[in-house]
């Protein structure tokens, strides 16, 4: 699927597979864990460390992740909200997933818009969909939802509602189960 180098075969499960080893070497002071998903290497860092990590990812010659391709906001229920960033390097052709878990009740993550302007709309979408707050974002308005709507539909606690009930045309219990 990807053309990144597979992890060397001598160790069964290295602590830092593939590109994660270089990132760990570049940022010795930052606590992080790494694993592999089906398509990418994934590193996990705390929200406070994100700016330092992203600066290193972007500016280091051997990493050179110049392209933020995707961003996902997730509701991990009792574990709090999570953000996942997908980076790609046009120079080296490798890709990376960065997971940033936030503690329950404190969904604040530093905004990546100063580093990657492409993050602008991705962050607005994640903010409205799961209720993440991106500190430092220039314009954190609703993007896909109505401007004054203050719901976060992709939270697991948010029920799937019949549109007639949302619009107030019909009375009913909010939400239904498939």
């Amino acid at each position: 699927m990807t053309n990144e180098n597979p992890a060397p075969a001598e160790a069964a499960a290295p602590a830092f597979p593939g590109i994660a080893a270089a990132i760990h070497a570049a940022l010795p002071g930052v606590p992080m864990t790494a694993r592999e998903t089906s398509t990418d290497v994934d590193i996990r860092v705390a929200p406070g460390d994100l700016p330092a990590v992203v600066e290193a990812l972007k500016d280091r010659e051997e990493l050179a992740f110049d392209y933020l391709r995707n961003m996902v906001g997730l509701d991990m229920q009792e574990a709090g909200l999570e953000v996942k960033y997908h980076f790609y390097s046009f120079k080296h052709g490798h890709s990376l997933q960065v997971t940033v878990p936030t503690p329950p009740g404190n969904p604040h993550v530093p905004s990546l818009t100063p580093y990657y302007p492409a993050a602008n709309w991705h962050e607005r979408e994640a903010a409205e969909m799961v209720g993440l707050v991106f500190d430092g974002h220039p314009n954190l308005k609703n993007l896909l939802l109505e401007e004054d709507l203050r719901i976060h539909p992709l939270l697991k606690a948010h029920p799937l509602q019949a549109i007639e009930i949302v619009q107030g045309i019909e009375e009913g219990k909010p939400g239904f189960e498939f």
Partner: protein
Amino acid sequence: MSIWPEEHVATAHHGEGFDTVDMTINVGPQHPATHGVFRMVLTVDGEMVVDCEPYIGYLHRGLEKLSEANDYRQAMGYWDRTDYLAGLVCEQAYCMAVEKMGNIEVPERAEYIRVIMSELSRINSHFMFLGAFGADVGSFGTSFIYAWRERERIYDLLEEVAGDRMFPTYVRPGGVAMDLPENFEARCRWVLSSVYQGLEDLDGLLTGNEIFVERCSGLSPVSPETAIKWGLTGPMIRATGLPWDIRKAEPYSIYDRIKFEIPTGKQGDVLDRFIVRLAEMYQSAKIIEQCLDQIPGGLVLNPKLPRNLRIDNGECYVRVEGTKGEYGVYGLARGGNKAYRMKLRSPSFCNLSALREMVVGNYVADAIIILGSLDIVLGEVDK
């Protein structure tokens, strides 16, 4: 006596200190030039755009929530409604994500069929762009009808194979729904020959038209660095001269066995975006021809799959080269027959986020053309 206050009257001899007032123009959401339900608010100083704010979400259908609420096969029907001009590419991406998470094998013949169908959809979608873009620039009707002739033939072919024109729900996790019809190869080659003819006609009509070329060349050039910074992908980034195509950079399916070129532009202006898409259609036709030569026999659907597909644990970010750019599907499975989270990285969404940067500083009439050259599909932007 003038009805205007003295200082706001424009006269020939005091143009210097003449202050202008910015005006706000609302374009859309119901407007033929916005290619769907899209609204942008332009602030103009005379004829120049000084600010642009896009508003999207009119077509938001909650794709991601529905993918969590329905099981893997049920949710599939929603995904070809994203990029509705090339639904089969989206189906392929979604099914690849499910297959990655569940480690499902796909028969080789099914991979070839998927590529053939995807490339047919790509040609179809680009024809739509050529026709609509010609209409944006001013050749109203002619280019549209020229493009439609070939589109109908491709849609007929898709219907023969999959049973539906636009939303066939033909690709399945583990393969495709049914095998190709008997006379498919001959029919497909005939459609391709007519595609070549249609491309030549459109090429002559638009690229051979000096007014069209004058209108589009040099308009809103984008450098490769800016394109990367803003996350532009697909024909948009190839127009800047960067030969980046996911089919080559991170090959998936059987694209590593196919020979094709990546057409690129020079300066990333509107004309380059047009020419890159035109050249890509020839490449897609070449890919289909090679697939028809190479396609093996055998099954088209993995027979070992259970009726109720359950995936214990899996995470992936699958990306394919959609017709508009990088079409990515992030999937997370945590047991059960439904995905825990599916996220669409839609190329139109990311390309559109750079609209303001491209439009500001141009004329209002050019803003419409620049928007047209992005080739957005609102189903994909709004999810």
